């Protein structure tokens, strides 16, 4: 019975962390059809910002939840103005430019911080479920994942800002005819997406040994989750994250993490073969 609880918590944690790392990419892809392959580096920079802030004495929660998204959000703004802005509508070119960006950022961070592993410890201690010890931080991540997803959903669906954003994505001409500036909307959306990536990176920083190349580990998973989810931002990411997170964790618990990863990849192949437009290409079509 205890083990069942552990399994459930582990699965929820896997889903939440997948959702978190994919959120930024999903916003940018779902809203603007821009594939930001520097997403992994945004995560990594979020992590580094949090670590630097903590080492400078800032409270760890502030560092993770405020400093990290702020820093990466600003970076996202700069990137959008300098690079992405010229490449809207050219999906392939944005992919390549952001790929170059990811190399650039990795190199930059290596030059500044060096290549050694760094990190901070988790602020929340473990707790007991029957005979098992669990990491309290996993719960924090689950909560964070839920809040972030809920936040995006509520913003897009129920606020004016969200409405304008969605409208501009669907039809920029109509939106500008109604007096809104699509360019500005794109800029803000990309910045928000970057900030989300930074937030995820900050939250995940206490769990891993962070190096300049850590971004590469995340970007493949995020990319696969977002594409498999389909065009809808929240519904797509949540559905694919739930599916893949569950599969990964169940297989990992039964065998090894390698097979867990491989199982997720195989599931992605099968899914895309059956639903070539992603999950929300077929189901949950009307959702955000």
């Amino acid at each position, binding site marked *: 019975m205890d*083990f069942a609880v*552990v*399994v459930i918590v*582990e699965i929820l*944690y*896997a889903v939440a962390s997948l959702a978190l790392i994919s959120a930024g990419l999903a916003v940018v892809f779902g809203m603007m059809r821009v594939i930001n392959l520097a997403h992994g580096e945004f995560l990594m920079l979020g992590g580094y910002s949090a670590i630097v802030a903590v080492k400078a004495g800032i409270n760890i929660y502030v560092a993770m939840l405020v400093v990290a998204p702020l820093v990466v959000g600003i970076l996202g703004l700069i990137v959008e103005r300098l690079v992405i802005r010229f490449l809207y509508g050219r999906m392939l070119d944005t992919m390549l430019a952001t790929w170059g960006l990811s*190399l650039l950022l*990795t*190199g930059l961070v*290596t030059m500044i911080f*060096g*290549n*050694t*592993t*760094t*990190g901070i*410890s*988790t602020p*929340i*201690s*473990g*707790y007991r479920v029957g*005979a*098992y*010890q*669990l*990491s*309290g*931080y*996993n719960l924090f991540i689950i909560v964070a994942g839920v809040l972030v997803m809920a936040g995006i959903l509520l913003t897009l669906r129920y606020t004016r800002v969200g409405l304008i954003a969605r409208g501009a994505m669907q039809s920029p001409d109509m939106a500008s005819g109604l007096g809104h500036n699509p360019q500005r909307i794109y800029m803000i959306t990309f910045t928000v997406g970057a900030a989300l990536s930074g937030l995820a990176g900050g939250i995940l920083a*206490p*769990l*891993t*040994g962070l*190096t*300049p*190349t*850590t971004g*590469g*580990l995340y970007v*493949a998973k995020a990319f696969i989750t977002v594409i498999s989810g389909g065009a809808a931002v929240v519904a797509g990411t949540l559905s694919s994250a739930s599916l893949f997170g569950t599969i990964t*964790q169940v297989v*990992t*618990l039964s065998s*090894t*993490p*390698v097979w*867990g990863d491989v199982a997720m990849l195989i599931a992605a192949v099968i899914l895309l073969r059956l639903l070539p437009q992603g999950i929300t290409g077929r189901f949950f079509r009307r959702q955000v």
Partner: protein
Amino acid sequence: MTLDRRTFLAGSAAASIAATIAGRAMAQGATIDVASIHDLSGIFDAYGKPMEKAMQLAIDEINAAGGLAGKQVKEISYDTQSQIPLYTQFGQQAALKDKVAVVMGGILSASREAIRPTLKRFNTLYFYNTQYEGGVCDRNIFCTGVTPSQSVEALIPYAMSRWGKKAYILAADYNYGQIIAKWVQHYVKMNGGETLQVDFFPLDVSDFGATIAKIQAAKPDFVVSALVGGAHLSFYRQWAAAGMKSRIPMASTTLGVGNEQIVLTKEEGDGILLAYNWSAEIDTPANKAFLAAWAKKFGQADVKEIHELAVATYQGMMLWAAAVKKAGTADRMKVIEALETGLSIEGPGGKITVDPKTHHCTLDVVVMEIKDQKLTVVKQIPQVPPLDTQAVCDLKANPNSNVQHEIKI
């Protein structure tokens, strides 16, 4: 390893031309050249950089004392960027182009096996100065690092005497991890214990949540970790985060060789047991002189970068230098024969003696515990011979052997 993405890009397989230019620029015969082939960048640079510095320090001391066989010693340094294929490449270069007298290099066991056959083929002497899983039987190589019958044999009985009989093993998924896991199981069994489970993890795995749950389900008395590298460091973090640190104790055959205890916090590292050859606390004149010389050359702040592998590299260089002095020449076979007389030196880690049958070394072993991000000595075992390799390798009887024996359990 996906984490090599950027470093792979940076380190494409084409050889480093500058090194060849350096090789060509050097006048033939005026110096004795030694090659350093280590990871000076990429994810294993924390291991490699101090090792190369140790070589520089050794060379400075050798040259200050008059050089070897009337010539000064010169270092040619290659950076393998944490990529295994570059070891093969640079090995070829060092042997064919630079024609060095000896190569000091290799960190991961995979890197050793990528370079060892090449250096043997081109008749270039090779020193491997990293603690590893034992068993290499090759007359062209000298291994100065601790092997399981030295480290694991000291570590496991001590851990078991403190904690209990049931072990759970985690290991990195490559040749070192696979073989060392077998050795740990061997010693656990020999001391009347039981191995509950062995799990392997590729070097880029950083999410150990499920593993921690599984360990708890198995209820071991202690955990043995043979995890390697930056991503695996997350395990110790997540373990402490789950509050497991105070509930199940841990020993490791790898933690600490790269000074990882400094990266971990006190809560994450305290209490973990290790066993190697060297500790900064060893109170001998040789060790004190070594630490002082390092501080003088690289600065006092750099002294904390010294780790087991750096000391082993220093000791390897000094051993080789002693052999060249004894032989009167840097010629490969003469140096090998000088070493095979059972040559020994006094290093920072104690007395090191070459075993002629296996080309491994008899060393002092220290069992240590991490405390306040430092390695404190809890037990010292002097002059342990490399029994594991001695059981399977006899270079006097088979001088042409070119294999690595793997333990069968």
